[in-house]
């Protein structure tokens, strides 16, 4: 297969390096269209969708660039053997270590996906890298402080969020290391050819950004659509307690895809709901949401995401129920 690809790539060299000019066509169409569209399509729905879509994309952009740059740096500057040496071999040690590493490094979903993908391609055990992927956006110091600010008189919720998120990341990592088949994960990130470090860095960063960024935009489109069409106000009246409220808020966390630094403020406003269901909202959000699912499909493929996202979602709910029952 490999030699096949090589032959065809060499044959198509001219084509691969060329540009199709799609960017300029798109910009030209948009500029021309803009003079007509504002006159005829001035709808509040379209504007609301566009604002949310642009906000989500622009907000994620710096974190995605950071993730891609760190990932490209690992790929082109860190020798492959170094990582294999520092990461513990046994999953029993590697998975909790990855969870705690995630807790210490302020990350965002958008940075941790490319970084985790790169760690895997550099020989870090899948389960450990995935534990890091789940833990980094969920329980870093910035998120913990934001949660404490949003719930000033509820320190036990802050503790519960930390404990439940770390536990979920470790449980999912452990289950994955026992039962997952390594072929489910098909890394779509670029590995570089043997070149100078600088060349490799730019190649890998540009390629990964376009791949991951495309999926990020897809995720932002879905989220903007959900936020625009779902009247969240009715939730206040659904409200209530029990398992229905837990599942409602778990699903809401998935479709709203609010970034983990701000979700506590939204949860604080959902006063009709029980504390356990709000805890579930805070645990699910950073680990399973539309934006993250899109990024995972982009980095690891569909077969992986179809198994990993439901596993994480179910674990989040069970662990939140358990932790909530003990701590809240």
């Amino acid at each position, binding site marked *: 297969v490999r030699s096949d690809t090589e032959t065809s790539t060499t044959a198509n060299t001219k084509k691969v390096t060329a540009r199709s000019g799609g*960017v300029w066509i798109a*910009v030209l169409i948009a500029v021309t269209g803009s003079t007509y569209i504002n006159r005829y399509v001035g709808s509040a729905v379209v504007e609301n969708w*566009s*604002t949310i879509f*642009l906000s989500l994309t622009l907000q994620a952009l710096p974190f995605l*660039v950071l993730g891609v740059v760190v990932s490209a740096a690992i790929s082109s500057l860190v020798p492959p053997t170094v990582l294999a040496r520092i990461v513990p071999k046994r999953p029993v040690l590697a998975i909790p270590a990855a969870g705690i590493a995630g807790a210490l490094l302020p990350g965002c979903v958008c940075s941790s996906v490319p970084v985790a993908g790169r760690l895997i391609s550099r020989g870090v055990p899948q389960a450990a890298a995935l534990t890091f992927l789940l833990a980094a956006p969920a329980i870093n110091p910035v998120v913990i402080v934001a949660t404490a600010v949003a719930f000033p008189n509820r320190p036990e919720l802050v503790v519960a969020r930390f404990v439940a998120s770390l536990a979920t990341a470790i449980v999912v990592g452990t289950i994955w290391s026992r039962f997952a088949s390594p072929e489910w994960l098909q890394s779509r990130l670029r590995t570089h050819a043997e070149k100078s470090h600088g060349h490799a860095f*730019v190649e890998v*960063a540009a390629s990964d950004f376009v791949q991951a960024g495309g999926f990020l935009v897809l995720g932002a489109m879905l989220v903007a659509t959900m936020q625009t069409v779902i009247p969240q106000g009715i939730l206040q009246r659904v409200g209530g307690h029990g398992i229905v409220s837990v599942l409602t808020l778990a699903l809401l966390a998935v479709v709203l895809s609010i*970034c983990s630094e701000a979700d506590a403020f939204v949860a604080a406003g959902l006063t009709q709901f029980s504390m356990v269901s709000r805890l579930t909202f805070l645990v699910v959000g950073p680990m399973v949401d539309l934006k993250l699912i899109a990024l995972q499909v982009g980095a690891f493929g569909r077969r992986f995401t179809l198994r990993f996202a439901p596993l994480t979602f179910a674990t989040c709910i069970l662990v939140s129920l358990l932790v909530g029952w003990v701590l809240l």
Partner: protein
Amino acid sequence: MGAAVKDGDRTDILITVGALALFTGLTDLILRYLRPGMRPLLVLAGACLVVIGAIGAVLDSRKDDHTHADHRPSRVGWLLLAPVVVWLLFSPGALGSYAVSQRPPFQVTDVDFDLAEHIRTHSFQGQAPDLQVFEFVTAAFDKKQRHLLETTTVRLSGFITHFNHDSDRVYIGRLRIGCCAGDAISATVELQGKGEELSDDTWVEVAGNLDRKATQAVADWESPVMHVQRLRRIPPPAEPYEYTR
């Protein structure tokens, strides 16, 4: 656009997206979409993209026929142009009345706000004290503070919204964001006495006091009621959202 993203397109995409990030970050456009604190990060990200794109373009132009076996051009990268296209087409403003109608109204939680202290520690240049709409709602549903809000004239600024079009009630609304407009939460105060004729998303400044009787009649997930003494139209502010003080 069914075609795969070629290397040359890739560098074009990086530069175009980077330029959008730079433009947004360097102008007040950012205030429609993100918390102002994101400005340096967005500018830095935009600059990185433009630089990586430019270096990539130079490398591409010098490329010999040795390319990579693992190169898998994909189509999804074209989607990165969507933000640029959407911005050029609609140039959407900040969230307003429509978003308020889609979101649950702000509920008084444990958020700290002390009206008496706010009045004591700020100078209002001889005018009535100005509050955030969120602060008004907080004080209005706080048993200890509602009396002060009933007896003090305060100023609020926000946009007009009617959110249930089945009633003739009019509200002043405002959105508060944490990171970006995607996480906005809304607060509204019902206006009594003025403003009925105004249409959604008109920016106004109102001065008035809490109508305690009317407010006690509503559930605490609804909007408190303000008895309006003065109302004037204002231009939309550069910072359309409220942030935690």
